[in-house]
């Protein structure tokens, strides 16, 4: 049984103009995989990531996550899946302004019904994991881009998800800082978490076990090592 299994998944936006963002995508990800998705802008990478992460549903085709058929789940059940199994990291960090790093990370446990004190305790550990033990009480505006992205990763992993999805997490960072972020994600993968990363950067993609190329909504090829 695969952790995630897509078969013949298509996603189209009715428009007009109608856009076929994904066409007949078959894809499997196993527990412990590290996957990079690479492709030009507009090729459907984000759409794919949202469907893999139960944030969106396909127009046709089937999606199975942790052995559940997504099409049979209600919005509430999908939310439950995201709350417990899945972590997301975005290119623009998406931290809550005016809220400390610790509180931002603690939000990652909010929808698991965890009490406030435990949320903060675990958020502290997650910040240590990403190397930000000294920055817990800083506001996002007081942090560098790389530090903000580490806070966002800590928020994604504070609930120990099975899989973390990152949509161009290094897109807004310089090469050196971006490389540090990739280190964090690969460490996470080494500890057992499945990691799926979208990137434009060939060097970044090369550091992952699998590299899937996508072009015009179709999978154009895969390298695996």
């Amino acid at each position: 049984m695969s952790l995630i299994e897509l078969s013949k998944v298509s996603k189209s936006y009715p428009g007009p103009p109608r856009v076929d963002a994904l066409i007949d995508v078959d894809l499997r990800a196993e527990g412990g995989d590290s996957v990079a998705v690479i492709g030009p802008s507009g090729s459907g990478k984000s759409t794919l990531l949202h469907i893999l992460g139960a944030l969106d549903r396909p127009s046709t085709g089937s999606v199975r996550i942790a052995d559940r058929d997504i099409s049979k789940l209600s919005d509430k059940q999908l939310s439950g899946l995201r709350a417990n199994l899945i972590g997301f990291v975005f290119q623009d960090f998406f931290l809550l302004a005016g809220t400390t790093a610790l509180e931002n990370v603690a939000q990652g446990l909010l929808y698991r019904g965890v009490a406030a004190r435990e949320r903060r305790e675990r958020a502290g550990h997650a910040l240590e994991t990403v190397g930000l033990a000294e920055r817990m009480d800083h506001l996002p505006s007081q942090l560098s881009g790389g530090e903000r992205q580490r806070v966002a990763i800590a928020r994604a992993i504070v609930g120990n998800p099975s899989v973390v999805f990152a949509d161009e997490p290094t897109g807004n960072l310089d090469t050196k800082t971006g490389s540090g972020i990739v280190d964090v994600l690969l460490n996470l993968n080494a500890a057992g978490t499945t990691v799926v990363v979208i990137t434009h950067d060939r060097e970044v993609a090369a550091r992952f076990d699998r590299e899937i190329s996508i072009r015009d909504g179709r999978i154009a090829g895969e390298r695996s090592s």
Partner: protein
Amino acid sequence: MKSRLLWRDTIGLGYRGILTRRGRSVLTAAGIAIGIAAIVAVLGISASGRADLLAVLDDLGTNLLRVTQGQGILGQSSGFPDGAAEMAGRIGPVSRYSATTLVDTSVRRSELIPELQTSGIGVFTAKDNLLDVLGGTMQEGRFLDAAADRLPVTVLGSVAAQRLGIRALDPQPRVYLGDTWFTVIGIVDALPLHPDLERAAFIGSTIAADLFDTTAAPSAIYLRVNPEVVEDVVDVLPASVNPESPDQVEITRPSDALAARKAAEEALTGLLVALGAVALLVGGVAIANIMVMSVLERRMEIGVRRALGATRGHIRAQFLIESTLLAAAGGVVGVLLGAGITVAFAINRDLTLAVPVAGLFGSIGAALAVGALAGLYPAIRAARIEPAEAVRTG
């Protein structure tokens, strides 16, 4: 595998949403605060005013009747027969009665002032129990008694005393009645239901008959009757006091004026409360407006929360709670403000402070309801946002 948001945390989210946009929150809640303050102040002030009005009504009673003789169809005024007051007193439910007779003279500060210049002060005869029947009290000195009935002494109504420039009885003031000096032995307190008697000088009936040929026929009779049967007494009175021309007898119930004032004030209060309610609604619309804007601005936050596992219901609850808390904060501030205005007004006007408890709780409840209602549409919109759309940047 469930998504679960604790109640405590839902409220915490709403609270945080308000605090992180402090300036905007204050402006948004201000409308509600003003509406609630207006309602509470109007209810408080009118309750305080009404308490005093009711106290006056209680004090004076609603069972006093004033009987006078009107004019006939041909304009002739016949006057009561001599024993009219005693006749009225014999009616069963009449417990006490008194009468006054207009004296054909004027009152002046001194003989130097021309007789025509009377300052609108009327001279009346009075019996010792008049004040008792009216429920009046003395401001200075004492009222007429049996011994004073034949002496040149007078008691002044409060307005009459003022117009004659008499404030104290020491040294004993005198006034000029007709062409005789009368000593002022008392000043009556205000008689809010009897403006004509506030402008009167009272003298004994014996001296009035001696000096001014005043007859024993009363010009006004005052009756205290059993409150249960006031209407019945009104029915039989005309024939008792003036058997010859009962249709010319006029009966008034002075407390009716107060009751009418009370009704008018209640109507005005209703109108003002309605205006406050309109302000409250406008405040609600403002909240709805700002919340809709806030939802648009916070698409990213909504997307992230959905990605973190929030259900549509959790998002809806967050925004609903936020707008309800906002309105509640406005409501609390409004109640404090309204209470402050009421207290200041009551102190300023020397009113007895009355707390309209039902009004207080009612208006807080109204604020909560307005907040929840105002938040409903924005909350539904927030919950409808597609998470995959909300987290897209490109």
